């Protein structure tokens, strides 16, 4: 694997997958790939949110390399709650 790439373990709605990512790309670039690999086709990438293992949201515009993720990191990608409320 080239030095500028790394493998990220991403849990999509509870289903794990591993995505190869470019460290110089923003974090959001892993979202479409993780969705594709897990067969989650119904909602566009902007309707998903990425969090760390503690549940804290991650800035998806930040470069992947800037996060300095440890090798065993696991990120959690989940579908956002849509607009709720009964009128």
């Amino acid at each position: 694997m080239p030095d500028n790439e790394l493998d990220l373990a991403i849990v999509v709605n509870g289903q794990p997958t591993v995505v190869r990512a470019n460290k110089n790309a923003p974090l959001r670039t892993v979202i479409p790939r993780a969705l594709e690999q897990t067969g989650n086709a119904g909602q566009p990438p902007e309707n998903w949110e990425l969090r760390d293992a503690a549940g804290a949201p991650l800035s998806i515009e930040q470069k992947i390399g800037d996060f300095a993720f440890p090798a065993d990191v696991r990120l959690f990608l989940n579908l956002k709650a849509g607009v709720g409320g009964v009128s």
Partner: protein
Amino acid sequence: MSQSQFVDPRVSRAKFDREIAEYHDLGSDYRRRGWLLVRAEFPWILVVLAAPQLKPPAIVTGVAFDYTNYDMRPPSVRLVDPFTGNPYKAKELPTHLKRSVESAGPPIPGLQLPLGAEARFVAQQPLMQWYGPDDTPFLCIAGVREYHDHPGHSGDAWELHRRSGAGRFVRLLETITKYGVQPIADYQISLQPRISGFIQRDVPS
């Protein structure tokens, strides 16, 4: 098994078993976040959600899932008493799962804004919905059976969300945790001072 299972039970059970197996694979991660799986027996799941960020930690709510007919039908999701498993009535809810929603709001007479600027309002909208205090509230998001069964959501069919994993167990727990557990910062304590007598400086001889 539920009496109303009409999907081939082997199909629903296989999908249910996958949800539980994937959960167990990452069970230690989820437990650190305060998710305690106490029952997983097709088609039912009971999870107790705790707030580990509090000292001492608190149990916030139980969540009961019913995966009957999954995934031809979405799961039923109820907030329940974690000790009895009984669904909370609206007046008993420990959390309303409030979310902030930004909107344009009504025009305000006399409000002067720079050209092109627009006043934005932030409202707090509960994801738990009900009509009366004795109603059993439902989680008002796509992917939940009670949401799709509600006549107000007849235009947002389950079939539109099924392939996105909207009804998946971990996704629903994530949503409930995000709005109902993670925002809890501390205990709210009310004290009611009561005069119970006088304090004397000394007792004269």
